[in-house]
């Protein structure tokens, strides 16, 4: 195999042949993608909360059971937990350098995001369908 003499890749890297597989920026891209989605969804979320101010329990449930409000809230939760998991992952990778602690923190981060997300999604769906 002809090698570009200017290449900075080591011989081992060339033999292994593992490149980025075009996935190197996927986390960066997902952070932006969810971020873009979260701008209107955050406005919608705050709008829903504000519309509930001063309302009693049953009225609040009725507001959330509205399909538009529920779908916007579900999308807000989904985009939000994905966005925050990536964000916290970057923070962990920046500040925790001990390998064991770093992996433990990354696992805890993933579990926390999924747990929070699913509990919140379940609660919204329960309000909608009961």
């Amino acid at each position, binding site marked *: 195999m002809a090698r570009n003499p200017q290449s900075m890749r080591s011989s081992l890297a060339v033999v292994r042949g593992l490149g980025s597989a075009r996935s190197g920026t996927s986390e960066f891209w997902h952070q932006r993608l969810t971020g873009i989605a979260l701008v209107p969804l955050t406005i919608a979320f705050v709008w829903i909360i504000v519309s509930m*101010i001063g309302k009693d329990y049953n009225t609040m449930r009725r507001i959330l059971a509205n399909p538009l409000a529920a779908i916007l809230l579900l999308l807000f939760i989904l985009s939000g937990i994905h966005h925050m998991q990536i964000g916290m992952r970057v*923070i962990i990778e920046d500040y925790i350098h001990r390998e064991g602690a770093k992996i433990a923190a990354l696992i805890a981060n993933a579990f926390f995001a999924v747990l929070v997300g699913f509990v919140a999604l379940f609660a919204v769906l329960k309000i909608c369908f009961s």
Partner: protein
Amino acid sequence: MTDVKANGGTLLRARPLSPHLSVYRWTLTMAMSIAHRLTGAALYAGTLLLVWWLVALATDAGAYETFARFIGSILGRVILFGFTWALFHHMFGGIRHFVWDVGRGLDHPAREWITALSLVAGLALTILVWIIAFLIR
């Protein structure tokens, strides 16, 4: 620069460290970069409040009453105000980063303006929402 001994016992000069935050003069862009990360981390913790609210609402009126009493207390209000500000601050900070991502607003003084604008917008929208909240209460 202090000298350190490498594994073999040879005396080496310490590797130069990249300059950390403490060696720079404080700038607005720097402070706002840190604030973006801090508000992000705060919102991460704040999702617990969101979950409490939704679960209480999904459970029954009694569970919601417990949540409502907490959020209506002084501490609850302060946390909710902080949550609102962190949300909007982080949102406008994100928009600022989108502008930078496409290569706009990176020059001086555009970057200073856009940073100051995102700070003011976050505060203004927070205060506006709370004024609306108190008016329709």
